[in-house]
């Protein structure tokens, strides 16, 4: 292997951006070797420089970025010495890149076939017809159904998963030697993601392409890569084969990262997550010495803060390196960084009852055909017959992919939309058809919401303090200015932020801090039910754990009912007491977390569980990759909503009859036609390697 020339080699690469604040070093002293046919993962949180590495490899850093040190060699050739024309020839033919947003990578005004054929026309000078013929083959190779139809479609006519397959096909058309994938599945749903990951795994085998896979998700790296590099604050902190890094990680940051992600067997009370304390330093405020120093439990003054630290080899593992001054002093076998476990909470009385709630949206069809047939009004059935209860101090998770109707449900509950049928009772009072404007302030204050996007949740024009105090004033918790001020300070204490944050504006806060303010704002009116819509999914892994833990702690203290909306089953498993699974507006399964996460499963739940990437080499997972995409809610199917994608479909009964809701155990209900014997025979989706307990 050492005889071979690497496809790509980065030697001591440093990249900086030049901005108002001066030079911002984005990547410092970065080394990477990618051999032919190898997949290398780069993992790290936002701002760690992983995308900058990819852009540097493409030699495409915008007008304010520059390589300030080191070199990048492609097939042994120094890329800095290449002319702009040579680089242009290289990009898209020898090196291809797949970006995060498939819609943004495709030209919306061109047919997909033409866009794909352009690659051949541009790099090989072929004709449009020949280009299209070869493009069809490639679409089939990325397992797109009906390639001919896709060729004749515009990007908006196909789904997000299909778009990303087209982008991958486009990247592979010219048989590149190196494929860069920058978070290729982050914008996709989990069940769609698992299909794409499957495809990516086969690319190296089928085409012999080397890959650099950039992701923040450790589980995906484990599934797709041979070797990996962990980055923190612009530096590689640990590198090695995937097995070496996952099984014998040596850098404290890597340890912290793994301790802060929920694993499938984890439970909030038994194995609480351990967040990494503090936050990522800004690039121009990095400490001297180890960048991770201020957040590290093993930081030693006088040793870790004495200047640049180099990558060190690890005995016995040729490829494994870590950037830690105390690498050989830390004994990880004796170190236990277990979080504080806590008692189960006793759930109280039923607070929220959802009773056969329906929400249909009306759309008017103004086409001539519709006018003639008199069938002008169509219904989008966003929520169909939703029933469940939530008790005091309980966390109920609503799980489902985008388009399943979970956000519609939240809107109806909050009073932004009105239910079409059924009831939603809060403390016995029906709210389903009462818009928020007509609810009593008292009632409004009982229901509050935490939002997903930290960059959107706070108004950028007002100080943090004024946004929290508005809630306090609005709900009449306090009226005296001094008391309101004190209450704001107390809430900041509650979410563990310094009191002077009250005077700051949102743009001065990090994502995690904003999300904490969002939590403080939600709890400012003493609510009895809080709806959290994906509260941590937009945050970095190490911050996610801290915010999730905080939310749990506050909920525990106030005995608030938490409705937790999420697509991330690891987080759901970790946080919630009961789970409600939704698909296409229907509630397909509900039960306690243990019931839902253990067999018998609803086939959809089973597929969802299997789609979750797991960052643990010891877990064995049963693979279920769903075919197709979620059907549209405009033309509801008769029978089971999941029939088009179900891997356990029985036959015509699934197409004709809506499965009845059946009670499997106390509180465990699902809608499925499967025989009891078949349900009983289901195997668990994960098997933990070490103790073989079912998850």
């Amino acid at each position, binding site marked *: 292997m050492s005889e071979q020339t690497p496809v790509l080699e980065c030697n001591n690469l440093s990249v900086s951006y030049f901005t108002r604040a001066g030079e911002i070093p984005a990547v410092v002293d970065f080394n990477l070797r990618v051999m032919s046919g190898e997949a290398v993962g780069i993992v790290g949180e936002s701002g760690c420089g992983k995308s900058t590495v990819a852009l540097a490899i493409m030699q495409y850093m915008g007008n304010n970025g520059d390589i300030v040190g080191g070199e990048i060699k492609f097939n042994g050739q120094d890329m800095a010495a290449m002319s702009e024309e040579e680089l242009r020839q290289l990009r898209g033919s020898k090196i291809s890149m797949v970006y995060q947003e498939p819609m943004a990578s495709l030209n919306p005004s061109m047919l997909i076939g033409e866009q794909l054929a352009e690659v051949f026309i541009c790099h090989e000078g072929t004709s449009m017809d020949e280009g299209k013929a070869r493009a069809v083959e490639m679409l089939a190779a990325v397992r797109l159904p009906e390639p001919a139809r896709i060729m004749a479609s515009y990007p908006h006519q196909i789904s997000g998963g299909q778009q990303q397959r087209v982008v991958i096909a486009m990247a592979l058309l010219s048989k590149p030697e190196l494929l860069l994938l920058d978070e290729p599945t982050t914008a996709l749903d989990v069940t769609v993601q698992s299909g794409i990951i499957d495809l990516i795994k086969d690319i190296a085998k089928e085409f012999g392409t080397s890959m650099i896979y950039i992701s923040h998700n450790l589980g995906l790296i484990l599934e797709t890569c041979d070797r990996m590099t962990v980055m923190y604050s612009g530096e590689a902190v640990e590198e090695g084969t995937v097995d070496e890094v996952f099984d014998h990680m040596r850098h404290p940051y890597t340890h912290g990262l793994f301790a802060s992600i929920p694993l499938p067997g984890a439970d909030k009370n038994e194995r609480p997550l351990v967040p990494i304390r503090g936050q990522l330093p800004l690039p121009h405020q990095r400490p001297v010495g180890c960048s991770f120093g201020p957040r590290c439990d093993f930081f030693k003054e006088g040793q870790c803060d004495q200047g640049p630290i180099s990558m060190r080899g690890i005995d016995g593992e040729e490829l494994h390196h870590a950037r830690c001054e105390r690498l050989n002093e830390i004994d990880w076998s004796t170190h236990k960084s277990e979080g504080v476990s806590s008692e189960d909470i006793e759930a109280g009385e039923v607070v929220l009852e959802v009773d056969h709630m329906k929400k249909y949206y009306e759309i008017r069809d103004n086409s001539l055909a519709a006018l003639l047939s008199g069938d002008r009004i169509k219904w989008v059935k966003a929520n169909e017959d939703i029933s469940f209860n939530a008790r005091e101090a309980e966390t109920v998770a609503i799980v489902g992919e985008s388009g399943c109707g979970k956000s519609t449900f939240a809107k109806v509950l909050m009073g932004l939309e009105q239910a079409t049928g059924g009831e939603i009772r809060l403390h016995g009072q029906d709210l389903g058809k009462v818009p928020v404007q007509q609810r009593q302030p008292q009632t409004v204050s009982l229901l509050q919401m935490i939002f997903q996007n930290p960059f959107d949740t706070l108004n950028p024009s007002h100080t943090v*303090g004024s946004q929290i105090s*508005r809630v306090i004033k609005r709900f009449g918790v306090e009226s005296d200015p001094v008391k309101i*001020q004190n209450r704001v300070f107390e809430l900041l204490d509650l979410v563990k932020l310094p009191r002077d944050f009250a005077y700051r504006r949102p743009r001065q806060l990090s994502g995690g801090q904003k999300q904490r303010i969002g939590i403080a704002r939600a709890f400012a009116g003493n609510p009895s039910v809080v709806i959290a819509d994906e509260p941590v999914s937009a945050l970095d892994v190490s911050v996610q754990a801290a915010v999730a833990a905080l939310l749990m702690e506050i909920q525990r203290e106030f005995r608030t009912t938490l409705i937790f909306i999420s697509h991330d089953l690891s987080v759901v498993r970790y946080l919630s007491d009961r789970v409600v699974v939704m698909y296409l507006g229907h509630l397909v399964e509900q039960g306690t977390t243990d019931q839902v996460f253990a067999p018998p499963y609803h086939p959809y739940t089973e597929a969802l569980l299997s789609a979750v990437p797991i960052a643990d080499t010891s877990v064995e997972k049963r693979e279920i990759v769903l075919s197709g995409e979620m059907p549209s809610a405009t033309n509801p199917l008769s029978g089971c909503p999941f029939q088009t994608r179900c891997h356990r479909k029985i036959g015509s009964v699934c197409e004709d009859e809506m499965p009845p809701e059946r009670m499997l155990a106390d509180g465990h209900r699902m809608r499925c036609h499967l025989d009891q014997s078949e349900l009983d025979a289901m195997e668990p989706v994960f098997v933990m390697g070490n103790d073989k307990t079912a998850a």
Partner: protein
Amino acid sequence: MNTNDHSMSQPARGFARFVQSIALLKESPIAIFGLALVMLWVILALIAPLLPLFDPNTPLEPFKKPFSDAKDGATYWLGTDHKGRDMLSRVIFGAQLVLIWATFATAVAYFFGVIMGVVAGYMGGWWDDAISFVSNVLLSFPVMVLYIIIITYLGSTGFNIVLAVTFASAPGIMRIVRGLVLDLKTRDYIFAAQTRGESPLYIMLVELLPNARGPLIVDACLRLGYTTITIAMLGYLGLGLPPPDPDWGKMIAETQPLGSFAGHMAVVPALAISSLVLGFNLLADGLREISLRD
């Protein structure tokens, strides 16, 4: 945060922020040049009464060339016009008038345009249809005809200039604001306010409007320039401020026929108009450039 606290801590922060934003201007030479032109006229207009100037409306010696000596030993720096009035004094006092009326007219146009835009964008539905329809009708009028109708009906006073500018500009402002609001209203903080049961008025004024200010400041600079031209144009057509006030447009109109014989009388006010409009436009360009940079 309570209101007392606001008044205690905000001004200092507000002022510090203002200084910071001014400091950002130095990134764009264009913005600085534009600001310098605008400030030149603003300062001249402000200190006009303190300057050793002739009265702008008193006839002295007609048709004097620039830099010629006056009777009492003073100098007509920019000459005099056909009625013997000092051009420098007329241009500077004219700046006073044009700046006051342009600012006031633009502010009034903004007041109506912003209200219409926020309501149309946020309330949507019937409100949007009605407001957009009214704007489209107004926009479909030839602006010149609109001005002439308004002013010939109501006579030429400053108030009518404001009215004319408002009719012509408010629909355009409404469209910009509506577009901004349509984008802003999908943000989570708007949902947060809605789920608190806040009134639409509160959401529009407190939650939405402050976040639309960036693009509006740039637009306001541009629009001040347009309004300056409009006022000059109305003056030129004899529809501007009533005589004998020194209106730049009217100064050109009155002296233009005598251009071959004493060209400075029309060129001086024309240069005044161009420089002020150029200042506003360059400032707007520079501000946009700065706001796009990171």
